[in-house]
């Protein structure tokens, strides 16, 4: 390991927190999706770091990371399709303008 | 190979001349500076070679194209600047440098300026894994082919940047067309490479080339049933990937002026142009690597073989430009998704089949399978005509 594991974990934590901030704060749904990709990336970094340092079979972490990649791709595809459908119906992509379930 | 020893020595010397030159320089350096500097020097030497090679290739490809197109269209092509017009690219370069650099008022200026720079980077980066000759791969990555595909897929982003940053509807339309086209053709291209990976059992470009050696170094993958189909698919996709005719919809002059680089002029335009020609070159080079045996070949030095094959393929591309009319958008997408994609999947199956049976029966079976699937796919894709359009003003 070239750099200590904790540093990578802190890096991924910060990346995750940034993504979470985006998810909580961005008004644009596409912005939220982008932030979700950030969070997934942070998780992937963790997986790789652990597979490189503590895992018993070294390929497990990578394989899980690849699964996460695939899931991220599906998330993006379906999520963006939903956004497009929403935009077509409501002419908006801002979360606080889509509040049919509001009181 | 049974050659006289002297000849072989000479051939080796010529073959490895560039490699030996680099080794000699590094050897010299290692006496003067610490090790890590030598490593850096190695990288720098390769990098400088590539950085020089890229623009030169671009410049002379434009000349080649103009000449060839000229001949195809019954004219001479550029012949005034220098002997046979050889100095024409340099004159063009000077013109590009001295032209006014226009930035539209409402453009997203940072992105507008960043786009041409960014687009060159992947175009240059893919040179890293192109095996120019024996031991002449800049970085012998063990995932070389994947690296190539991944890096060349980045190209969509600078195109988006250029099209978005220009704030021009033709740019935007052209950018979206480009992205759609590149994404679509990336799929069959990647899949058409799969049989090669299966057969050579490696992702390294170098190993792929090595696995095509054999008697007279002519055991190329194009001489197998799956190889020839894969090569055709790969080459068509490559033509589409670098937006060349007949797949040049993103920059169709008659429809959307010049596509995503409508608003670019001067050196920024030159960078786009350069990236395009470098992409064409690398794609042809990779096609030669994957299917035509790369630098493998009898008698001649390896890098001559490689460059020769690559230039033949580039000439075919130029020939395409002089011959075929442009596709329509729906035809373009349908061709990728409904024709090439199924055919690549069938090709993977055929490759598996050929691996397990003898060569002759393999040819027969493959011929039958490809004929049937070709016929079926053509039948299925028959209604390429779009729905009848209504022109309200015409009524």
């Amino acid at each position, binding site marked *: 390991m070239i750099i200590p594991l904790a540093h990578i974990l802190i890096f991924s934590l910060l990346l995750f927190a940034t993504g979470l901030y985006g998810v909580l704060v*961005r008004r644009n749904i*596409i912005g939220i999706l982008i932030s979700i990709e950030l969070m997934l990336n942070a998780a992937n970094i963790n997986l790789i770091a652990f597979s490189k340092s503590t895992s018993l079979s070294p390929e497990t972490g990578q394989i899980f990371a690849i699964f996460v990649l695939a899931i991220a791709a599906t998330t993006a595809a379906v999520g963006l399709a939903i956004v497009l459908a929403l935009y077509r119906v409501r002419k908006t992509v801002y979360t606080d303008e889509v509040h049919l379930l509001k009181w | 190979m049974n050659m006289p020893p002297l000849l072989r020595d000479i051939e080796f010397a010529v073959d490895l001349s560039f490699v030996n030159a680099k080794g000699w320089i590094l050897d010299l350096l290692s006496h003067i500076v610490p090790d890590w500097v030598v490593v850096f020097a190695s990288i720098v030497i390769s990098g400088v070679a590539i950085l020089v090679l890229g623009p030169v290739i671009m410049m002379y490809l434009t000349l080649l194209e103009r000449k060839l197109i000229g001949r195809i269209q019954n004219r001479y092509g550029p012949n005034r600047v220098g002997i046979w017009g050889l100095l024409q690219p340099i004159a063009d370069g000077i013109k590009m440098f001295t032209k006014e650099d226009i930035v539209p008022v409402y453009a997203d200026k940072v992105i507008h300026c960043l786009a041409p720079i960014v687009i060159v980077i992947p175009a240059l980066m893919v040179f890293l894994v192109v095996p120019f000759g024996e031991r002449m791969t800049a970085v012998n990555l063990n*995932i070389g082919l994947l690296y190539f595909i991944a890096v060349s897929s980045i190209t969509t982003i600078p195109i988006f940047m250029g099209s978005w940053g220009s704030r021009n509807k033709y740019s935007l339309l052209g950018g979206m067309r480009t992205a759609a086209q590149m994404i679509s053709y990336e799929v069959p291209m990647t899949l058409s490479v799969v049989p090669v990976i299966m057969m050579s059992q490696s992702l390294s470009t170098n190993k792929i080339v090595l696995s095509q050696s054999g008697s007279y170094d002519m055991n190329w993958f194009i001489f197998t049933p799956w190889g020839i189909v894969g090569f055709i698919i790969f080459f068509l996709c490559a033509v589409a990937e670098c937006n060349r005719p007949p797949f040049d919809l993103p920059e169709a002059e008659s429809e959307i002026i010049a596509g995503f680089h409508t608003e670019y002029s001067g050196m920024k335009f030159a960078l786009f142009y350069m990236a395009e020609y470098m992409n064409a070159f690398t794609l042809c080079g990779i096609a030669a690597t994957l299917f035509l045996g790369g630098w493998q070949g009898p008698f001649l030095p390896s890098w001559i073989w490689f460059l020769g094959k690559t230039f033949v393929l580039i000439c075919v591309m130029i020939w395409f430009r002089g011959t075929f009319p442009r596709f329509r958008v729906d035809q373009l997408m349908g061709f990728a998704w409904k024709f090439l994609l199924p055919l690549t999947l069938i090709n993977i199956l055929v490759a598996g089949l050929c691996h397990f049976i003898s060569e002759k029966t393999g040819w027969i079976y493959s011929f039958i399978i490809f004929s049937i699937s070709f016929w079926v796919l053509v039948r299925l894709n028959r209604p390429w005509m779009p729905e009848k359009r209504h022109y309200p003003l015409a009524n």
Partner: protein
Amino acid sequence: MDMLSLIIKFGIYGTMALALIAAIAVVTLRNLFHSALCLAAVLIATAMIYAAFHADFLAAAQILLYVGAVMTLIIFAIMLTEQLGSKTIRQTNRQNLAALAGLLVFVVILGRVIFKTPWPVTEKALASKVTVMELGKAFMGPYVFPFEVISIILIAALLGAVVIAKKDR
């Protein structure tokens, strides 16, 4: 420690810093297209970190999938939905301060945990270098079932995306 690994180390730290800055730009930039480009930067930086951890295949896959495909999709969506003159629209909602406070607490807690935990580092794992072939064998061996499941999920997502995004006729 020799110079080369020092350079690599600083390279990694630099990449991390770049990724973090780009990530902050992703969530704070007003122009969504810019944040998408910054995301691309983050992703490429992450890919480089993967490569530094000898996960070559994953790095290439990251670039191919994320930068090549997902980013293109996102930018497409942005282009289809964004009004070009929307600079004045507020891009964050009113709970940013609350979120920021919560996230600070979160980072502090988890940071404490990370630094306090004695992470076991095995030499075997450090020495290992996973090749593409091993990955492929793992996919076709112990992980074949999740692999097949993910393929089904991909197909389902493909169909679902097409159906959802298709215009009603």
